[in-house]
Structure formats: structure tokens, C-alpha cells
């Protein structure tokens, strides 16, 4: 049985980007939101440290500085027109959130509080600037809640716990999606003038990750299976501070508030790698430094972790050494109460999972797979791009982590994921609604559900010689070992081969649960297929890129190569093969320079 629904705009995903798109699109158009999770479970809620915007509430700041920092953070792979648009719009977007009711932490004069964050600087002094607008260390939680609350207030229609299976494109125009209702296994066709994908990332292909179980790249996978490209998939961010072994995120705000990374010899090793901003260098820089320290035997007790020390004595000692001051010019000194009050959730995570009180003991950390810079290529209105010449596919949009505008280039700056989803969620929502107002509903192709049904059927028809759980485990370990912070030609070649093998073995799994109610075995098998396809693209694109740039660090090609590689990759999945193409990076004000912190 197939149920068909018709709307002007269908939004797939109900995290920050999807909800922001829904709120804005609903001002003009008839909207429905289709989401795998109940909106309040979305991964935006796990974002901690803040959203960057040059409000200048505590000290001088300019959106142009934010733009330059983002370009530099991206290792010059970000498109500068898009970055300038994002950083200029970020200021209004943060005010929009406040007006929606977001409970930002406040400065003494009642304005939105701001804190330093990795890679955000005063462009004149090169010193860290307070730009990250925060609500304690649960900024993402508050963004998600606030946007959902506003959606309720505005009567937005939600289809919760629906997994997207396919995107419908007919005659070069998008006309809807196909989704599986998880509670019943009923197939739904959503016929629409415009579709906005806001399905999040795909970090669950790595063994150690900060990402939710839901992060299986459902939107990107649906798009690439329809012959559309994915952009810059070789760039995946490893956040420096995941809890050792668990990967749970410890926000950069801990370092923003004065925390320090320490090796086995008790050294603040970031002084060597980033002499000016040290522990607040870009994430790729810090993760690489950590890896090199561990490789040199300076991990704690020779093991694969380091310490994040946020004890007040340590913070104050290094604040004094750095000459750090408060906005009023007095020396920066903290008490245990003060530092803990700014990171209450981090304190809770440390106590729960490690039995460690961060005011008394340092936190064991290792780099953790965190954020997809790559994804579905789009322009600044979220319109999906299908080739090297930036041709747009009418009616199809993508925003947030599943999209690649590209504003993050080869490495995203901390806080910019939230900036991205609010700014582009808003503009894609407005654009899609405007488009839908003027466009005609394109008829559905005959039997629009057939491609999805055929893929679902194959998951039940395998010979059962392979187990999905085992394939998933092998995938995560391969990716973590060879497509992590550092990569080599040999490791990548090995992974590409292994992935070809895993994708073949995947055809032999067989879903045992024949039921229709929350058939999560079927759901997990589908999600595994998504991860396998995207891992394959990631590894192939990474093997091809023979340079080091941002999060893509090749041991065998240690330098950035602007002559050959200042370009975005586009990857098409064609059966069992991948075709790569490239398109130029947009440079406006900031010619590529050597990147030092």
C-alpha cells in the first residue's frame, strides 16, 4: 500500500536547518516536514559551544573578520562569495533566534554573551576574539528547541519517524520524495513542487565519532543513487577533543574558557604547532598535532589519548603566561565555580562516563569523527547543483550538514555549523517557497515508489550468508584506521578495495524480521547501505586528491598544492564505479596564502 500526499514544499529532516527552512517557507507556502527522528531528537541538539556571529557585544568585531577566519579555516577551499554571504547574514540570524525566544547566556549589560572559539580572531592582532554566541554549553539544544517551539506556534505539519528512501526527479525537475513510515512500514510518496533535504551528516562510518546513531547520510545517499553528484566528500572533520574511546564531544568552549591540551610529558604541545593562538587553532591543525604527539610516543602512558586540562590552576597559569585579559582589561583568572558554570553539560558527561571531575582532574581525549564538510552541492539559496558548470536542478534544495555550499571548504571553523544551518536554512526555505509559488506541480513518474521498493525488497531477498552488523563493524574500523586524521595512498587503496568487497557482501545480507511495526532491522540495513555508498565515495575522492588541505592530510603529500588542487571534487556513483569531476573555487577578497596560527 502506498499513500500519496501533495504539498508545495516538503522538507526532509527536522534538525536546525530543516526547522529553519520550514519556519521561513511556511510564511509563503504549504509545507510539510518529514523526519526520521522526532524533531527534538535531532543531532543539532548535541551542538555545544556556540554560534559565531560578529555582534561585537564584548569587543570590536566585524563580519568581514569572521569571513576571513572562515576562509582561512577552510584552507582556502571554501567559496568566498558564499562565506561572505553567510558571515554577513549570521548577525541577523542570531538576532532572529533571540527574537524567537532562544535563551542565550547574557553579558553583564544584558546582551547576548560571546566567548572565544577555535580559529576566530581579531584580524588586526591575530588574537582570539569573543564571537561565539552561546547558551551555556547547550547552544544546539536551545536552537533546536526554540525552532521547534516556533514551528508548533506556527502550526507546521510534521511527519515524524519517516525514513527518506528516494528522491523523485522527472524530466530534469524534482517532484517529490519516497519515505518509509517506521511505525508501520507503509510507503509514502510526497509529491511536491520543491524538496529541501536537511538530513544531516554521515559520521557513523567511523569507529570513534561524536555523531548520533542517526547520522547515516540518508539524504546524500538518496541523491547520489539518482545519478547526482556529491561534493568534497574527502573532507571530514575530526574534532580534537572526543572523550577517549567513546568519542563523545567535549566542546572547544572548554579551550575557549582557558582549558589546555597536555601530553605525557606535561607539555602544552600546541605552542609548537600554533605559536599565536595555540590551543585555539583550527580543528584540523589541533587534531593533526595530537596525532603527531601520540605517534611520537607522547600520548598519555604511551596510549592513544592526551589530556584536556581545565583545572582552574592550570587555566590561570597559562592565562597569565598568555597575558589574557577580560573585556574590562583586568587579568583573566577563573575559579572552579566560574569555569564549571560555563560548561555544565561537559561536567556532567565527564562525571557520568569517566568518573572525572574536570575541576579536579584533566579529561582524557582523542580526535573524534565529527562533521562532514562535503555533501550535496548547492548554491547560496540551497539549490542543488548537478555539474561542474553549476547547473541547478529545479525544485531540489539541500541545507545544513548534508549540503556543501561550500562554506566550510576543507575544514569547518567551530560554531560555523550552527551558522550554516540557520543562515542557509532560512534562505533555502524562502527561496524554495518562492519557487513553489510560481512553479507548476510536475506530474509524478509512473509508479514513483518502484525504485525504493526494489531496493527494500533486495534487503529481504539476500541469501543470508552475511550479517549487516559484521559489515558495519568492519566498515567503521577500516575508515577509522585509514581514512582518519592522516591518510596515505597505500591505506586509501586498501580501503577502496575493501569497500568494493563490503558493498558486494552487503548484497548477501537478509533481514530476518518480517514484521511491519518499527522494523528496525530493516531500517539499520538500509542505513548501512547508505554509509557504504558514502564511504566508498569518500575513500575514492581521498585517494585521488594528492595534496594535504584542511581535514584531508596525506602523509605522502604533506603540502597544499594550489596549482593542481585548488578545486572542489564532484563524485558520481555509477553502479559499482565512481566518476570524479572538479569545479573551481570561488575567490573574491582573499587570495590563498600560507596558513599559520
Amino acid at each position, binding site marked *: 500500500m502506498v499513500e500519496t500526499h501533495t504539498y508545495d514544499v516538503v522538507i526532509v529532516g527536522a534538525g536546525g536547518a530543516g526547522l529553519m527552512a520550514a519556519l521561513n517557507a511556511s510564511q509563503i507556502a504549504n509545507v510539510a516536514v518529514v523526519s526520521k527522528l522526532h524533531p527534538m531528537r535531532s543531532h543539532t*541538539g548535541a551542538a555545544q559551544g556556540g554560534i559565531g556571529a560578529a555582534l561585537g557585544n564584548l569587543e570590536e568585531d566585524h563580519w568581514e573578520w569572521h569571513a576571513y577566519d572562515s576562509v582561512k579555516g577552510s584552507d582556502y577551499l571554501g567559496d568566498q562569495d558564499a562565506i561572505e554571504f553567510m558571515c554577513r547574514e549570521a548577525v541577523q540570524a542570531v538576532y532572529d533566534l533571540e527574537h524567537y*525566544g532562544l*535563551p*542565550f*547566556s547574557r553579558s553583564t549589560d544584558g546582551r547576548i554573551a560571546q566567548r572565544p572559539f577555535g580559529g576566530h580572531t581579531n584580524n588586526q592582532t591575530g588574537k582570539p576574539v569573543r564571537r561565539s554566541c552561546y*547558551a551555556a554549553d547547550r547552544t544546539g539544544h536551545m536552537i533546536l528547541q526554540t525552532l521547534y517551539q516556533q514551528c508548533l506556534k506556527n502550526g507546521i505539519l510534521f511527519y515524524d519517524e519517516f525514513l527518506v528512501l528516494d528522491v523523485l526527479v522527472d524530466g530534469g525537475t524534482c517532484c517529490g520524495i519516497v519515505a518509509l513510515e517506521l511505525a508501520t512500514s507503509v510507503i509514502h510518496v510526497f509529491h511536491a513542487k520543491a524538496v529541501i533535504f536537511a538530513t544531516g551528516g554521515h559520521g557513523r562510518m567511523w569507529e570513534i565519532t561524536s555523531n*548520533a546513531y542517526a547520522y547515516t547520510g540518508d539524504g546524500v545517499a538518496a541523491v547520489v543513487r539518482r545519478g547526482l553528484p556529491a561534493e568534497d566528500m574527502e573532507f571530514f572533520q575530526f574534532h580534537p577533543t572526543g572523550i577517549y574511546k567513546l568519542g563523545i564531544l567535549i566542546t572547544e568552549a572548554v579551550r575557549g574558557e582557558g582549558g589546555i591540551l597536555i601530553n605525557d610529558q606535561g607539555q602544552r604541545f600546541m605552542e609548537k604547532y600554533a605559536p599565536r593562538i595555540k590551543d585555539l587553532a583550527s580543528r584540523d591543525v589541533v587534531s593533526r598535532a595530537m596525532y603527531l604527539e601520540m605517534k611520537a610516543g607522547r600520548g598519555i602512558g604511551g596510549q592513544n589519548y592526551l589530556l584536556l586540562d581545565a583545572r582552574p590552576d592550570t587555566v590561570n597559569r597559562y592565562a597569565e603566561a598568555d597575558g589574557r585579559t577580560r573585556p574590562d582589561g583586568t587579568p583573566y583568572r577563573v575559579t572552579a565555580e566560574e569555569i564549571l558554570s560555563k560548561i555544565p553539560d561537559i561536567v556532567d558527561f565527564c562525571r*557520568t562516563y569517566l568518573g572525572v571531575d574536570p575541576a579536579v582532574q584533566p579529561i582524557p581525549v582523542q580526535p573524534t569523527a565529527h562533521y562532514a564538510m562535503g555533501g550535496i552541492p548547492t548554491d547560496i539559496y540551497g539549490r542543488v547543483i548537478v555539474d561542474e558548470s553549476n547547473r541547478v536542478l529545479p525544485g531540489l534544495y539541500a541545507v545544513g550538514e548534508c549540503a556543501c555550499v561550500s562554506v566550510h571548504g576543507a575544514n569547518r571553523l567551530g560554531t560555523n555549523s550552527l551558522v550554516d544551518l540557520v543562515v542557509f536554512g532560512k534562505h533555502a526555505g524562502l527561496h524554495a517557497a518562492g519557487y513553489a509559488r510560481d512553479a507548476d506541480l510536475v506530474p509524478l513518474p509512473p509508479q514513483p515508489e518502484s525504485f525504493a521498493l526494489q531496493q527494500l525488497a533486495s534487503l529481504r531477498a539476500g541469501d543470508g550468508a552475511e550479517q549487516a552488523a559484521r559489515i558495519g563493524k568492519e566498515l567503521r574500523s577500516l575508515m577509522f584506521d585509514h581514512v582518519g586524521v592522516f591518510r596515505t595512498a597505500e591505506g586509501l587503496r586498501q580501503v577502496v578495495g575493501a569497500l568494493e568487497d563490503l558493498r558486494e557482501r552487503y548484497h548477501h545480507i537478509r533481514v530476518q524480521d518480517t514484521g511491519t*511495526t518499527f522494523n528496525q*532491522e530493516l531500517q539499520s540495513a538500509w542505513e548501512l547501505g547508505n554509509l557504504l555508498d558514502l564511504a566508498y565515495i569518500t575513500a575514492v575522492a581521498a585517494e585521488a586528491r594528492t595534496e594535504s588541505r584542511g581535514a584531508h592530510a596525506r602523509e605522502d603529500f604533506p603540502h597544499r598544492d594550489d596549482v593542481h588542487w585548488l578545486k572542489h571534487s564532484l563524485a558520481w556513483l555509477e553502479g559499482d564505479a565512481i566518476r570524479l569531476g572538479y569545479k573551481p573555487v570561488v575567490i573574491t577578497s582573499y587570495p590563498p596564502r600560507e596558513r599559520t596560527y
Partner: protein
Amino acid sequence: MELQLKVFRFHPEKDLRPHYDLFSLEAEATDRVLDLLEMVRAEHDPTLAYRRSCAHGVCGSDAMRINGKNGLACKILVHDLRSRQITVEPLLGLPLIKDLIVDMEPFFAHYRAVLPYLVNDEPLPEDGRERLQSPAERDRFDDTTKCILCAACTTSCPSFWANRLYLGPAAIVNAHRFIFDSRDRAGARRLKILAERQGVWLCRTAFNCTEACPRDIHITQAIAEIKNALLNHSI
């Protein structure tokens, strides 16, 4: 260590009534209860159904009864339970769907009933910037902004078990979050809703909610503050 995991099972298409399955697992003391469930699914029974997503206590998906007490499966570790016998069961008071999955809609309907959004139709500041709020005003409702709507509190409340129409602690917490926000203007409307038959007066201060909250929100206190506001006709 080896432990016994007893899991509540119910398949609505096959079972007339629920039963328990027992799994012997090799686990670490620091494993989360969620890790045990993942182990069951990967190695023993891929058909086991439960919700989960973030796996570190911020998304609110995996609230369930663990050895008889409500908690998040991703936030309770094996050593927290001080037992090698661990029983997991679905939340009480919400309709059972399958295994550990319950129908959350009645819970969210109560949330929606308290106007859980900022209401303020006054003009925005002329400079287009933020509305001002002092740190003290912000602190007034900080605790109740932490709610992740996991339902651990509401489904541990004896008043809710006795009367499923009672709005319950989570909805009241979310009303509190706006009633005490200096920027909001609908406090009186929310208080009126909370003063009705299914509102705060059904709270018997059992403190179950406060004990169950994985975010350590002082829920009973928040409810008391609402009661006080109603008695004093003030917010």
C-alpha cells in the same frame, strides 16, 4: 564481566502478551546500558526494537525502565547499577508499541498544551538587535531550559499513572521555562492552563520526577514555584 540482561519483549503482530528474553553478555563495567542493547542487536537478536540516537544523554530518545527505575539507557552505566542482573522495560503510562518502544504522542500532546514557545508581540528593539535580559533574569529559568523531553519524569509520576490526563511534570517544566522568562508575555495564559483540573494541583510532591530526571532539573521545585505563583497571583 558476564552479566544477565533481561529484556521486555512484545511484537504486536505476533504476541498476545509481552514476555522477557534473557541474554548472557560479556560487558565492561563502564558500558552503557545502551551498549548492551546494541550488543544484543548485533550478536543475538537483530529484531530487538528501541529508540536511540545521540547515545550521550542529550537527545532524549532512550528513556526506559532500568532495574525498575526510569533513566536514559545511554546515561546509565553497568557499574551504576551494582548488579549483574539488569532488566530493561518500556516506560510506564504510555501505550506500548513494540519491545521498548512506546507511543510518545500523548506525552507530546501535553507538552503542546502549555504554549511551549515565546509569546511577545511587542515591537522588537528599534536597532533590530537582541531584547535585553540581565544575567539574573536569565538565571531565573535556566534550570528548566535543560529539559530534553525524554519523558522519564512524567512516566515515573504516580499521579500520571493514576490519571493519564494530568499534564505531568515535563509539560509543567516547559511552562515554567517560559513563565519565568522576562521576555515572555503569556505567563498568565499558561498559569490559567496549569490551574485547571489536569494541572499542577495533581502534583503530590512524590519527588519521583526529580529523581528520574537525567538532566538533574529540580522539577518538584519548578512545580512548587508554579503553585506559588498561582497562590500569590504573581509571576
